[in-house]
């Protein structure tokens, strides 16, 4: 049989393709299936959110092994606690990215592995990703431009505080110390920056040409 001649990883893919009844479901419906122990629904969520989740974990950790650990722990946290997911509190994709980000921050604080400088590759085109379609890659590139433009539009001190927090894993107190700025100033910059980012993203969305979703 053809299947038997394939390497085992390809065979798994084929099995998954046979189970591709989930592709039409919303992210939130997938989480409901995951809560009932549906592994293929977890796989579909990984296909949709895994790339972005790995991107942020790698941005925080700068190490592929640790980043994969954070992604795996985050998805397993989703697997374990899907019954507690509430769609009125967050989009499913946001929930998973948040779980992975939290794990990455925990690891970076534990490992004292802090890198605040931007990734060298950030201004370059994406390296080819064998797991995603060209359409996915195009959408991700599009989304990245939009968010980077919004970040650039922030006042420097606000952008600095939210980027060091979200990408660097620094706590407010650590940032105050590192930047030599009062803690209260850091807190207010962080809120002002994130609230302004929210506004800018909303404006970009209401211009109509964007898909306001984390996943395609």
């Amino acid at each position, binding site marked *: 049989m053809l299947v038997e001649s394939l390497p085992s990883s390809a065979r798994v893919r084929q099995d998954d393709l046979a189970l591709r009844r989930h592709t039409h479901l919303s992210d939130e419906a997938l989480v409901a299936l995951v809560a009932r122990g549906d592994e293929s629904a977890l796989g579909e969520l990984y296909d949709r959110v895994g790339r972005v989740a790995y991107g942020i974990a790698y941005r925080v950790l700068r190490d592929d092994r640790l980043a*994969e650990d954070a992604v795996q722990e985050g998805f397993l946290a989703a697997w374990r606690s899907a019954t*507690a997911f509430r769609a009125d509190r967050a989009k499913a994709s946001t929930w998973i990215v948040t779980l992975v980000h939290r794990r990455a921050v925990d690891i970076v604080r534990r490992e004292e592995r802090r890198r605040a400088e931007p990734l060298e590759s950030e201004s370059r085109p994406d390296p080819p990703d064998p797991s995603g379609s060209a359409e996915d890659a195009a959408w991700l590139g599009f989304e990245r431009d939009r968010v980077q433009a919004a970040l650039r539009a922030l006042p420097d001190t606000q952008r600095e505080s939210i980027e060091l927090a979200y990408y660097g894993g620094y*706590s407010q107190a650590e940032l105050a110390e590192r930047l030599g700025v009062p803690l209260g100033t850091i807190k207010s910059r962080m809120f002002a920056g994130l609230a302004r980012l929210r506004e800018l993203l909303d404006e970009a969305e209401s211009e109509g040409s964007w898909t306001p979703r*984390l996943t395609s």
Partner: protein
Amino acid sequence: MDAETHELIAGYALDALDEGDRARAKEVLASSEEAREELRSLTEAAATMATATAGPAPSTGLRDRILDAARAEPQNVVSLEERRRSRLLPVLGIAAAVAACAALALGLWGASVSSNLDDARSALARERAAAAVLAQPTSEASLTGARGRLVVGDDGRAVLVVSDVPPVPTGKTYQVWVIDDGRPVSGGLFAPGNGTLAIPVDGTVGNGSVVAVTVEDDGGASAPTGKPVIASAPVSLS
């Protein structure tokens, strides 16, 4: 909401809070729908920053590793319930809660875990808070894995009331976790004991919170290292 609350929630959305501030944020979130809505939209904005990153792709084996690990790991509440359903006894009634109050008044629980005066003092404060919750519960959630229930007071403080918790190996302790949106936060340690224990849960619970118990090394862990042995149904506050 005042400026301080806005700032606290923004820090929470960015995962930029220390432990103390995190606990404070959770208290605010447990009691304010407005705060939860603010967190929802700020978290969307923060998570969008994840898409602004570029870097290498994960290895192609990661997907399979995650699915294998999921397969090997029974899920929190559902699987635990299935595994333990046959052993489930009827949950405790009001009478047991009253008995737990009596045990608290006698200081049995505090004495059993306290080795010095400071511990005894803080145990006493915890007992008083627990007694207040048990005296006027606003919500209860059933447990799987142990006989008992989770009793919640109107300010989101909770008490885990459990019976006949089996001993743990030397060097191990029970640790309570409050799980919100899949994030476990320690709710304190407790020692096993005979009879009914009323264990005050550190921090607060909100709608949808699950309280679970794991066995950890003495001194506790910063995150659960094993599967829960006891888990509550999601808390429903209305």
